[in-house]
């Protein structure tokens, strides 16, 4: 599901860029992530590795064991530069989809 979403975001990246800044964050290191992106043709997405940061854990897309959970996080910036975690959601299939 992740892959289909990112395929889509890549395709409409210029539309999204009119209103938001979009970035993809993965636990994988840069060369691994970029190799995967090449096979998918994700040439219009900003691809970031979480590296040593606790970002994924802090925002709920990773647990202490390193298990991953797809997450969409919205971050805002106040006029004084303060960064805020507005909200995060986890994409899930609707219960009535079999």
């Amino acid at each position, binding site marked *: 599901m992740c892959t289909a979403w990112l395929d889509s975001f890549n395709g409409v990246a210029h539309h999204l860029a009119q209103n938001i800044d*979009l970035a993809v*964050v993965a636990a994988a290191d840069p*060369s691994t992530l970029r190799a995967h992106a090449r096979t998918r043709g994700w040439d219009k997405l900003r691809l970031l590795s979480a590296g040593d940061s606790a970002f994924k854990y802090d925002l709920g897309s990773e647990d202490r064991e390193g298990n991953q959970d797809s997450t969409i996080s*919205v971050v805002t910036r106040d006029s004084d530069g303060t960064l805020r975690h507005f909200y995060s959601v986890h994409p899930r299939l609707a219960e009535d989809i079999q």
Partner: protein
Amino acid sequence: MKQRERCAELRWGLPKGATIRDYEFLEGPASLDKGDEPVRKVRLSKLFTAPDRALVIYQMMYGKR
């Protein structure tokens, strides 16, 4: 569609989120055709390209530590 719009409206009415620090990420060259070096550090604050823009991050399930 109307329900989604209403949901979006409700979301924007939420209180401001908790402050978070300026996390550091790793990024390769802007073009995928240019190999994977050099890898640069990028701060969360630098992902915003202009004021009054929200930053949406898709945290994909890829790569366990």
